């Protein structure tokens, strides 16, 4: 038998005779009661413990209130805790790092506003003009932003984005009409139209985002429309790279298709012949 193994066995045998923690605690308490051992002082003093306890309680209460204001359906625009929800939404938006994430959050906020107005209508609570204005603001904020720099630079919008903007404009008109209306019934009817428009805007924005994700996004150049891609594939099926075509050219081609005579390109002036200077 190895020496170290025998030492290990002796050590293991010795472990049987160790006092258990319960006995140690009891003995210490007994000796402290008799005054043989000093009573251990707490790590934190009484005042600090009181301060810590009250801070923890306040913090828990605050967190609970914020959570309630954020998540509960009872907290509607006319509720006292509604400003807390608005603050939390502002912080949520500020914490979003990318524009895509910000847009997602804005869409969520829009959905929330629609849900709040619907709940207020269900509970027969009056919907104040500022609540409607807030809904309109969220709708406008949720409108799709330009996907890449070329779009932004050329202020080009596709049809889908245009349709969504028109929807938002008509919602604006509905809000203005609502301000002029006198009866409660008419106001409720306009509120319903407004919530329907907001839902439509939201669903169209989500659809648009889905479509844009499916299209290839390039760092330079512009997004290639599907028609051109399939054509290029027919011409060179083995090619893995997609051709980059300027949007201006594409728009021109579309216009030419519609009315070739009107959009005919002007004739270029004849190029001047380049004369060589004689070297002396």
């Amino acid at each position, binding site marked *: 038998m190895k020496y170290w193994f025998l030492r290990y066995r002796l050590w293991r045998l*010795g472990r049987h005779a160790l006092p258990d923690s319960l006995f140690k605690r009891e003995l210490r308490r007994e000796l402290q009661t008799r005054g*043989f051992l000093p009573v251990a002082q707490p790590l934190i003093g009484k005042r600090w413990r009181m301060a810590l306890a009250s801070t923890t309680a306040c913090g828990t209460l605050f967190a609970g209130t914020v959570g309630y204001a954020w998540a509960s359906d009872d907290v509607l625009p006319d509720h006292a805790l509604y400003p807390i929800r608005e603050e939390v939404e502002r912080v949520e938006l500020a914490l979003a790092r990318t524009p895509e994430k910000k847009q997602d959050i804005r869409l969520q906020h829009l959905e929330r506003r629609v849900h709040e107005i619907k709940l207020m209508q269900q509970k027969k609570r009056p919907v104040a003009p500022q609540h409607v204005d807030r809904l309109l603001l969220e709708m406008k904020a949720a409108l799709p932003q330009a996907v890449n720099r070329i779009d932004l630079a050329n202020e080009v919008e596709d049809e889908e984005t245009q349709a969504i903007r028109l929807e938002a404009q008509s919602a604006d008109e509905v809000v203005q009409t609502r301000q002029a209306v006198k009866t409660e019934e008419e106001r409720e009817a306009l509120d319903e139209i407004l919530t329907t428009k907001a839902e439509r805007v939201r669903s169209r924005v989500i659809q648009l985002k889905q479509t844009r994700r499916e299209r290839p996004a390039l760092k330079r150049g512009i997004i290639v429309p599907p028609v051109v891609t399939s054509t290029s594939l027919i011409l060179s099926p083995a090619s893995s790279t997609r051709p980059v075509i300027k949007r201006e050219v594409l728009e021109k081609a579309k216009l030419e298709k519609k009315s070739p005579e009107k959009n005919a390109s002007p004739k270029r002036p004849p190029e001047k012949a380049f004369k060589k200077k004689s070297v002396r």
Partner: protein
Amino acid sequence: MDKQQFESFYTAYLNRIYRFVFYRVGGNKELTQDLTQEIFIKAFEAFERYDPTISQSSWIYTIARNHIINNHAKQRPTSSLEDIEGTVWASRDAREQFATHHDERALLAAIAQLSPEDARLVRMKYLEGWAFDDLSECLEKTSVALRVQATRAIKKLRKLLKDPHAV
């Protein structure tokens, strides 16, 4: 009397004294706990009279040793600690109580076969956890001599474990 000093002394020697008592009362846990508490109460009462020239380990060892003898003397008036140890370690019941595994029982039986001095040294050093410096003060031998004795005792123990009739 400085309670802080006594507390550091108590913390340093609790495990050692507990094990010392445990192996001398046949592994009886309740008796061990009672005796350990009484030993430390005695130590606290005598702490004021403690002479710093004597080492703390030999001082508490003497208190523990005398207290165990007094406790046994109630049952058997003429008994020494060596007699008590001899009886306890030799008994099969005690070994059954100490050890749960077969190899541990074999180890205890082998220790019991050593000479009384070697057996005491092996128990105090390897089972109870005394340091050689503390043992030299308790057993009144030099630390070097104890180390040599311990090494020889371990060799004998290895032989006994291989062949129980070797030594």
